[in-house]
């Protein structure tokens, strides 16, 4: 496709104006060897950085699978952890109470956080908009986003444990988790609600439909998939949190369906096993960690699929 190019393209040199050889034609424009080196080096470094970013993921996945899978068994999922830490897997029990506890606690937390969060988001988008109060609310939601998770535990502890003189309970852990979920739900719901085209609202309003109806029959259904994504992300986040549960839900070994009493949970169980002095439960910790990660990944996957199918923008 080309005329043969003679002469070194890379070497900068005086170009003969009247010469016909193609190669020299561009010679004086060509980047110097040093520039080329810098370009190659920079690109290689960037690629190296990217690979480095991916290495931990590979290692985590590998170790979770290799150490976690081996402790998975039917009994692993169907027996409660015993308190014993003797060597020998069968006597330490499984993680049944932890899984059930996580499901319950997170379910209650979601039941609290989602309606409240969506409500605040609706208010922000439909009513508050850019008023001073709305700015204030947004500011506080932002504040809430940055609060360390252990501080949520402290909050609930102060109000519900110290304040009432009662002790740890599953539902108190749920409340702490719902505080954690609240800003995520509000933020993501707000984002999605803002994407619903204003024209949609206006045409409904122009038909004489009352505002509340417009919200419930037009705006919310349109925004639903996106909000679901946000909710699932918040749930995935809450499921993995340990700190808020440390001094609210407490952990117990037995399966306990009563949210009013102590309740085990996966993150807390893992934490206890990791920090215990004996190595026999390390194995169980890996298995429990794998379980937790699989649960969270499933939630993320569903969230991503829903996000992909909803094309609001």
């Amino acid at each position: 496709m080309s005329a043969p190019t003679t002469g070194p393209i890379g070497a900068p040199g005086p170009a003969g104006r009247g010469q016909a050889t193609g190669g020299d034609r561009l010679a004086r424009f060509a980047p110097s060897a040093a520039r080329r080196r810098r370009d190659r080096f920079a690109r290689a470094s960037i690629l190296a950085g990217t690979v480095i970013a991916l290495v931990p993921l590979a290692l985590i996945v590998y170790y979770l699978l290799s150490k976690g899978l081996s402790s998975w068994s039917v009994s692993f999922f169907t027996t409660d952890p015993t308190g014993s830490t003797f060597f020998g897997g069968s006597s330490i029990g499984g993680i049944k109470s932890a899984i059930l506890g996580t499901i319950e606690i997170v379910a209650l937390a979601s039941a609290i956080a989602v309606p409240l969060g969506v409500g605040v988001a609706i208010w922000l988008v439909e009513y508050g908009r850019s008023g001073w109060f709305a700015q204030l609310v947004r500011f506080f939601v932002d504040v809430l986003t940055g609060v360390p998770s252990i501080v949520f535990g402290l909050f609930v502890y102060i109000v519900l444990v110290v304040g009432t003189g009662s002790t740890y309970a599953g539902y108190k852990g749920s409340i702490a988790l719902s505080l954690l979920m609240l800003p995520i739900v509000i933020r993501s719901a707000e984002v999605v609600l803002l994407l619903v085209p204003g024209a949609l609202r206006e045409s409904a309003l122009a038909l004489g439909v009352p505002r509340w109806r417009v919200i419930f029959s037009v705006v919310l259904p349109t925004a639903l998939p996106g909000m679901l994504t946000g909710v699932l992300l918040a749930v995935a986040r809450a499921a993995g949190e340990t700190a808020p549960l440390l001094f609210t839900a407490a952990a117990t070994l037995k399966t306990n369906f009563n949210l009013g009493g102590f309740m085990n949970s996966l993150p807390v169980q893992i934490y206890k096993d990791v920090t215990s002095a004996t190595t026999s439960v390390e194995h169980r910790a890996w298995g429990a960690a794998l379980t937790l990660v699989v649960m969270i990944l499933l939630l993320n996957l569903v969230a991503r699929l829903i996000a992909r199918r909803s094309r609001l923008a």
Partner: protein
Amino acid sequence: MTPEPTTPEMADPDLEIRTEAKPGTRPSAPAKRGLSVKLEQLRAFYGASEQVKGIDLEFRANEVTAIIGPSGCGKSTMVRCINRMHEEIPGARAEGRVLLEDLDVYGPSVDVVAVRRAVGMVFQKPNPFPTMSIFDNVAAGPRLSSRRRGDLRAKVESALRNAGLWDEVADRLDEPGAGLSGGQQQRLCIARSLAVEPEVILMDEPCSALDPVATLKIEELIDELKTRVTIVIVTHNMQQAARVADRTAFMLDGKLVEIGPTQEIFTKPNDPRTEEYVTGKFG
């Protein structure tokens, strides 16, 4: 406002890119000239869709050639193939030859970076680097190959003079480039392109975002610049083509319909489609 230099004689005599610079005279060899550009069977694709469908065209050295045609006819695409910017778009590719004098810029051993330095480009919307001062904007190109302060200063000044902007900005070279007016920003971009001493400058509707006064200034500039470089200008404004271009090419639907001296194209075109376009029957 001080008048800009209207002849290159008033420009900085230290111009490195010229061995001699006398306006209007045909310089004797070896004097600086722009290069001619020849397109041979150029085709350009976006994915599977062919936008430029086999064009043979020559842009003569040291002349201004205008490309006119209705929107979507492929003029910008074609021009972007000349400095190989077209392939920057994902999925886009080009076939055929683009010859700078006798060198095919699509040749296998040709460095695209060198091509882009030899063939400069001025874009539709003025786009000075927002985080840089006026000086740094113009110096950006030369700085890539030499960081010597002395060299840079000389190059920046001569480029700004050649772009007709020096008098207006000489005392505020450190101010942000984005703080200038639209017309000044575009001249800044032209200076930026000139600073790397290209042989050809491609202009893609350079005045469409500017007011009439700024447009006029740039058209005067084009007239001076053609003694140093070959200029290809894409324009949808036929009056502009009539004002600045030596030759004009009319494109329609990815193909070249006709090319000739500007006067002829606008008064006695050969092809009936050209006549329809220039008399405003469509486009």
